[in-house]
C-alpha cells in the first residue's frame, strides 16, 4: 500500500513532538483485526435510557463475545479503561429525555481507551409511538455523528444502530463488527437492522463464511483483492473474477487464497450467461456475490467524451444490474444469499470531474435500496459500502495536494486500507447478518464531504 509518510512521522517519538508543537493534526494509529484478537480489548460500559428494550439482547451478545460489562461508575483507569461504550437509547421518547445521552456520555467519554468504540442503539423513527418520540430518536443521529468527530483523533469511532422491532435477535454480527478492530475505518455511520425471522449463528465467529461460496468482481488487485482475501480468510471458497487482461494477477490471487479464477469482462453482453453457466457447472450455486469491479474516467461533463460516460456507467452499474438479474433468474443464490456492492462517497457527495462515476455509484445505492425489500422475501440481503479515501495504487497516483486533502479531511485524519472495505463487506455478507439489508455503509473515517 502507498505510504502515508506524514502518519508515520506523527507517530514517531521525535516527529510526534514536532507535530504537537506545531498544532498539526496527529493521525492516530488504527488498530486492525488480527486472527485470535478478542472482539473488544477491554471492559464495555453499558448504559440505557429508562424504558429501553434492548438490555437483554445486548447482554446476550456481550456474553457471546466474552466481553466484561461494567457499570459507568466502576469503570477503571489505565489498562482497565473501557474499550467501548454501548448505550441503549430506545427508551428516549421525548426531546426532554435526550438529556439521558448527556448524562451517560459526559462523565464516561474521557475514560474511553484509544481505538475505543461507541455504539448508540435507537429505534427507527417510523416505528416510534409519537411524533415526540420520533423526533427524539432521529435527534440521536446528530449526537452520535458528533461524538464520532470528537473521538476520532484517538482512533476511536462512534456509530448509531437502529434496531427495528423484531431485529433484537439479529444484532450480534453487527455489534461484533462495530465493537471490533474490523471496523477500524467505519465511523459516524447509522446502520439499520431489520426484523429477521431467523439468524444463522456461525459455529466459529472467526470463520463465519465456512462452507459458503462467494464471487468477487475486480478481484485481481486493490480493494477487490482485499475482499477476496478477507472472505477466504473467513472461510469462504472464493471465485475471483476480473477482465481477461488481468489474468496473471488474478491467478496469483486465486492461488494465494485457495480460490478459483474466472476471466470475464462483466460488460460483455454474454457475461451474465457465462457467469450463470460457470456457477451452474461448478456446484450450482453461489452464496455471496460482491460487485466490486469499477473504473474511473474522470473529466468534467463539458470535456467528457461519450465513451467516458458509457464505459463507467456500464462497468459500475449496468453490468451489476444484469448480473443480479441472471443470479436471481437462475436461482443461483443459495439460501441466505448475500449481495454486496461497492459504491463510493462520490456517489453520496458528488465530486468534480466525476459526473459519470458519481452517477454510477449513486445508482448502486438506488439499486440496493430498491432491491432490498424485494430480496427480503427470498431471505437474500443486498447492501452497499461506500468507500472514502482508501490507500491504493489509484490514490498513490493522485496529485500530492488532492491526496493529502483526501487523506486528512476525515475524523480519523488518514486514509483507509483496502482491508477496511473488505472487513465491512465480510460483515455484510455474513450468514449472521440476515437483519442487515438495504444499508449503505460508508468506509471513510467519517469523511467531511457528503454528510
Amino acid at each position, binding site marked *: 500500500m502507498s505510504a502515508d509518510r506524514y502518519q508515520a512521522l506523527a507517530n514517531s517519538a521525535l516527529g510526534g513532538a514536532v507535530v504537537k508543537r506545531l498544532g498539526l493534526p496527529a493521525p492516530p494509529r488504527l488498530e486492525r483485526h488480527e486472527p485470535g484478537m478478542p472482539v473488544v480489548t477491554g471492559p464495555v460500559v453499558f448504559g440505557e435510557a429508562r424504558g429501553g428494550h434492548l438490555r437483554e439482547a445486548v447482554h446476550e451478545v456481550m456474553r457471546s463475545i466474552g466481553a466484561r460489562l461494567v457499570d459507568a461508575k466502576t469503570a477503571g483507569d489505565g489498562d482497565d479503561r473501557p474499550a467501548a461504550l454501548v448505550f441503549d437509547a430506545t427508551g428516549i421518547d421525548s426531546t426532554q429525555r435526550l438529556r439521558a445521552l448527556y448524562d451517560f456520555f459526559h462523565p464516561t467519554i474521557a475514560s474511553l481507551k484509544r481505538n475505543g468504540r461507541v455504539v448508540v442503539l435507537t429505534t427507527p423513527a417510523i416505528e416510534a409511538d409519537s411524533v415526540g418520540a420520533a423526533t427524539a430518536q432521529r435527534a440521536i443521529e446528530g449526537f452520535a455523528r458528533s461524538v464520532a468527530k470528537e473521538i476520532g483523533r484517538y482512533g476511536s469511532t462512534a456509530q448509531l444502530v437502529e434496531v427495528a422491532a423484531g431485529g433484537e435477535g439479529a444484532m450480534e454480527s453487527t455489534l461484533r463488527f462495530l465493537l471490533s478492530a474490523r471496523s477500524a475505518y467505519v465511523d459516524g455511520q447509522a446502520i439499520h437492522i431489520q426484523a429477521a425471522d431467523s439468524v444463522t449463528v456461525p459455529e466459529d465467529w472467526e470463520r463465519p463464511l465456512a462452507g459458503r461460496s462467494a464471487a468477487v468482481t475486480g478481484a485481481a488487485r486493490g480493494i477487490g483483492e482485499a475482499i477476496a482475501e478477507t472472505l477466504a480468510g473467513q472461510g469462504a*471458497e472464493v471465485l*475471483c473474477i476480473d477482465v*481477461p*487482461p*488481468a*489474468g*496473471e494477477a*488474478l*491467478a*496469483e490471487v*486465486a*492461488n494465494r487464497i*485457495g*480460490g*478459483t*479464477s*474466472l*476471466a*470475464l*469482462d462483466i460488460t*460483455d453482453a*454474454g457475461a451474465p450467461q*457465462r457467469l450463470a453457466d460457470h456457477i451452474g*457447472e*461448478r*456446484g450450482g450455486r453461489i452464496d455471496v456475490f460482491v460487485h466490486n469491479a469499477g473504473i474511473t474516467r474522470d473529466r468534467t461533463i463539458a470535456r467528457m467524451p461519450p465513451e467516458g460516460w458509457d464505459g463507467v456507467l456500464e462497468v459500475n452499474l449496468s453490468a451489476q444490474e444484469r448480473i443480479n438479474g441472471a443470479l436471481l433468474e437462475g436461482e443461483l443464490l443459495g439460501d441466505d444469499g448475500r449481495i454486496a456492492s461497492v459504491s463510493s462517497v462520490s456517489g453520496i457527495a458528488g465530486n468534480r470531474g466525476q459526473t459519470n462515476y458519481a452517477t454510477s455509484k449513486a445508482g448502486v445505492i438506488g439499486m440496493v435500496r430498491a432491491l432490498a425489500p424485494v430480496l427480503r422475501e427470498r431471505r437474500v440481503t443486498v447492501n452497499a459500502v461506500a468507500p472514502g479515501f482508501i490507500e491504493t495504487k489509484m490514490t498513490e497516483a493522485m496529485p500530492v495536494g488532492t491526496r493529502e486533502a483526501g487523506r486528512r479531511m476525515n475524523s480519523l485524519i488518514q486514509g483507509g486500507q483496502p482491508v477496511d472495505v473488505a472487513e465491512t463487506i465480510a460483515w455484510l455478507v455474513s450468514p449472521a447478518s440476515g437483519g442487515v439489508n438495504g444499508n449503505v455503509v460508508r468506509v471513510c473515517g467519517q469523511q467531511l464531504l457528503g454528510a
Partner: protein
Amino acid sequence: MSPDALNDAAVLGGNRIPFARRDREYAHASNQDMFTAALDGLVARFGLQGERLGEVAAGGVLKRSRDFNLTRECVLGSALAADTPAYDVQQACGTSLETTIHVANKIRLGQIESGIAGGFDTTSDAPIELNDDLRELLLDLNRTRSTTGRLALLGRLRPGQVVPAIPRNEEPRTGLSMGEHQAISTKRWGLTREEQDEIAVESHRRLAAAYDRGFFDDLVTPFLGLERDGNLRPDSSMEQLAKLKPVYGEGSDASMTAGNSTPLTDGAAAVLLSSDDWAEAHDLPVLAHFVDAETGAVDYVHGESGLLEAPLYAVPRMLERNRLTLQDFDFYEIHEAFASQVAMTLKAWQDPAFCKDKLGLNEPLGEIDREKLNVNGSSLAAGHPFGATGARIVATLAKLLAERGSGRGLISICAAGGMGVAAIMERRG
C-alpha cells in the same frame, strides 16, 4: 483388456500463456518460468491449490542440461501439492500431444485419476553449449592429474574454442532445416504460393476472431504483459503476404515465406485431464473425452518420404482402428508448422496414387471440409513453441467440442525427426 473395460479420459480444460515471438516479451523468461505460469493459471482456474494430482507430464525441445527434471521443478514451484509426481518427455513438435496421450492412457487404465499434460519451449532463452573442442579439452583437463600434463593441455587453448555451440533448427542426419525439408515436399507436391498464403491469412483471421469473441478467455492467461499471441496479425492479407520473399527452397517456384511458415516462438501450455469420477467429485464439467491416438514416423533419411509426412500415415492407421472415415469429424486440427504441410496433407489424402501406393487403400481418404479445419486458427497465427503446441490444440479442440455440444475432432501434428502424432477426441451428446 478390451477398450470397453477402460475408463474414459476426460479433458476438463487448459491453460497457456500467450505465445511470444522469439526475443520479444519472453526474451528473459526461462522454460521453468513459463511452464510454472501456465500451471499456476490452470490451478487457479480449477481451484487445484494443494491438490495432489496423479502426475504432470510435460516437456520441451530446447532445454538446458541442468533442467533434466524441469517439469518436476515447475510442479514444486507451482500451487499444486508438492507430492504430485512429474516427468519430462521430448518428442519435438509432438511433445505435448504425446504427454497428453501418456496421461490419458494412465487415466484410462485406472493407474491415475487426474493429471496435467503440457509442454513448453523457449527459443530466446536457448541453451548454449561450449563448443566441442573446448568441452573435450576441459574434460581432459579434469582427468589429468599431473601439473605438466595440465599445462600441456592448457597450451591447446585456441581463441576459436570460445565460440559456443548454439542449437540449430536442423535435422542432424541431413543437415537440412525443417523448412528446407518441407521445401522439397512443397515442390514435389506442386503446392502453390497462393494456397499457402490463403491458409496463413485464414489462420490469422480466425485466431483473431476467436480472441474477439472471448473464446480464449478461459484458455489463456496473460504473462509478462502479453495478452494475446505476439505473432497474431489480425489484418494479415494476401496482398501483404504476397510481398514477402521466399525463405525456403530455390528457384522461381520457391513459395515458402516467413508469412506462411511458423516463426520461432516462446511459450508454454497445459491441459487438465481426469477420469469422469474425479471430474464429478470436483464439480468440474467434462469438455470432451480423449479417445485414441497414434504416433508414427517415416524414413525421411533413406526413403522417399518428406520430413513432415508422418501424420499422413499415422492418421489413416488410427481411423482404420476406430472404423472411422476422414469425413466422420466435426473439427480438424492440423498443426500449421508450415502452410505447405497442411496443404500437402490435404492433397495427399485426396490423391488416389498416394493413398493406394503408400497407404494401401483402395479409395483415397478424400476431402476435408475447410470450414471445419483449424476453425480458430492454428500455429501460423498463434506461433509454435515446439513443446507447447500439442497442449494448445488439445485444449482448443476440447472447448470447441464442448461449445458444439457433441461431436468428434481429429488432431494431426507433424514433428521433427520424421515423426507425427495424431489423436481423436469426442464429446458424446
